[in-house]
């Protein structure tokens, strides 16, 4: 247990980096995901195609490959960015594909009559999406979005493989010094579990708040 308590500062720093990665990447992924989902349901064929290609490409390439491509490849074409920034952007763009898909199926779950009613009131594409369809789809997408948040939290650990010292990397480093794997890895695992159960709790509350009863 000494190995754990003696290295709490290092592990704590790792946890903070994991939290920063998670929150920043989720914020970025939400913005990009809303844009991609909008493109995929828009009346503009080029945008629909671009949205589909984006989702298909990002969902079918492993995140680790994208991270390595960005971290080691971008400097080769003259794009210099910090390690942490690169990791946040890549994880955000990767998860945006999943968020876009969740939003799109949420949009599809809204009855067609709602869209027709919005148009009958004179709302255009953006108007009916923003004021009528998206708010109603929120209730159904909370659960999938919560799952994506948990997936994102776990995926931030892949940043360890390209050199970001977040929780997983911190645990590994401490273990290399202390050689006491059980308490250290169990401690890190418990931290991840607490994060996910917090997310699960929040999504549960939100789902009850946002549910639309028809």
């Amino acid at each position, binding site marked *: 247990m000494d190995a754990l308590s003696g290295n709490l500062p290092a592990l704590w720093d790792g946890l903070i980096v994991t939290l920063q990665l998670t929150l920043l990447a989720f914020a970025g992924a939400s913005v990009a995901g809303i844009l991609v989902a909008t493109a995929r349901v828009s009346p503009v064929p080029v945008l629909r195609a671009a949205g589909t290609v984006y989702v298909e490409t990002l969902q*079918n390439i492993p995140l680790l490959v994208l991270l390595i*491509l960005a971290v080691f490849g971008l400097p080769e074409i003259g794009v210099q960015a910090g390690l942490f920034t690169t990791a946040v952007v890549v994880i955000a763009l990767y998860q945006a594909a999943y968020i876009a898909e969740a939003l799109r199926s949420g949009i599809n779950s809204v009855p*067609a009559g709602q869209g027709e009613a919005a*148009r009958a009131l004179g709302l255009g594409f953006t108007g009916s999406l923003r004021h009528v369809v998206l708010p109603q789809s929120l209730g159904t997408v909370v659960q999938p979005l919560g799952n994506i948040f948990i997936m994102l939290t776990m995926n931030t650990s*892949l940043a360890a493989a390209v050199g970001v010292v977040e929780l997983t990397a911190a645990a590994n480093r401490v273990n290399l010094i202390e050689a006491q794997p059980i308490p250290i*890895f169990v401690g890190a695992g418990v931290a991840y579990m607490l994060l996910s*159960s917090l997310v699960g709790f929040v999504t549960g509350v939100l789902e009850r708040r946002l549910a639309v009863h028809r």
Partner: protein
Amino acid sequence: MSATSRLLFDEPGPRARRGTRAATLVSALVLLALAALAVRQFAANGQLDAARWQPYATWPMWRYLLGGLWSTLLAAVVSAALAMAGGLLLALGRVSPRRPVRWAAGTYVEVVRTIPALLLVYVVLFALPRYGLDLPLFWKLVVPLSVSNAAAFAEIFRAGILSVERGQSEAGLAIGLTRGQTMRLIVLPQAARRVLPSIVSQSVGLLKDTSLGFVVSYAELLYSGKVLANYNHLLIQTYIVVALVYLVVNASLSKLARTLETRQAGAARRAEAGAPKPPAAPEAALHA
């Protein structure tokens, strides 16, 4: 046009068509500008030189990468088999009438679902050898992937088992089958058919997870790419080729999942209608 399009806009009139044309033009220009920017950036740094791409038109490079792909597929198939077997047992445990079994299976799933696969890989790489369990390289990748994916497969199987109507197992028990026989002969076959699309898409996720071989230094596709890039110094080209190989393999699998889903949605509708002829109803749920 699909259901989505009907939800948000009607058949366009002249004005809407003009608007759509303008938006098409603008977005096409923006996309082209982005592509041009990327090409310029590549060209300005000499990454588009034919000499830097030419190696990937030769067989030895591809033979090496395809060898990596073979190892990737091997690891994925073995992990998938182990994870599915484990997942099935866990799912059966979660619907078991015995409380301790239910509790144990539930705890496993809830705990493992929230632990990153990379952390499990580190445990196998750095913790187990200390306790005298030094697995061969292949298993250092396969074991953590199986452990973590078993939880995901368990959730899929459980959802499938619960989706089979109660009447089915009641009927099984009523004709004198034991609980085990009912599960094996009546519930599981129906559940398996229903969850097939989810199984395929989870397998895509597992195939993506095998890229952790990079950390284990098991020579699967990504690690082979790393070795190759260290050798020929064509870093960006190599990783782009590797990414494209992953894309082709996974996109084919995802396509298979969607085809299965479409076919199943059709079968479900026909079963509901009680008639064998396929109805031409709108398919709102299809893209869910």
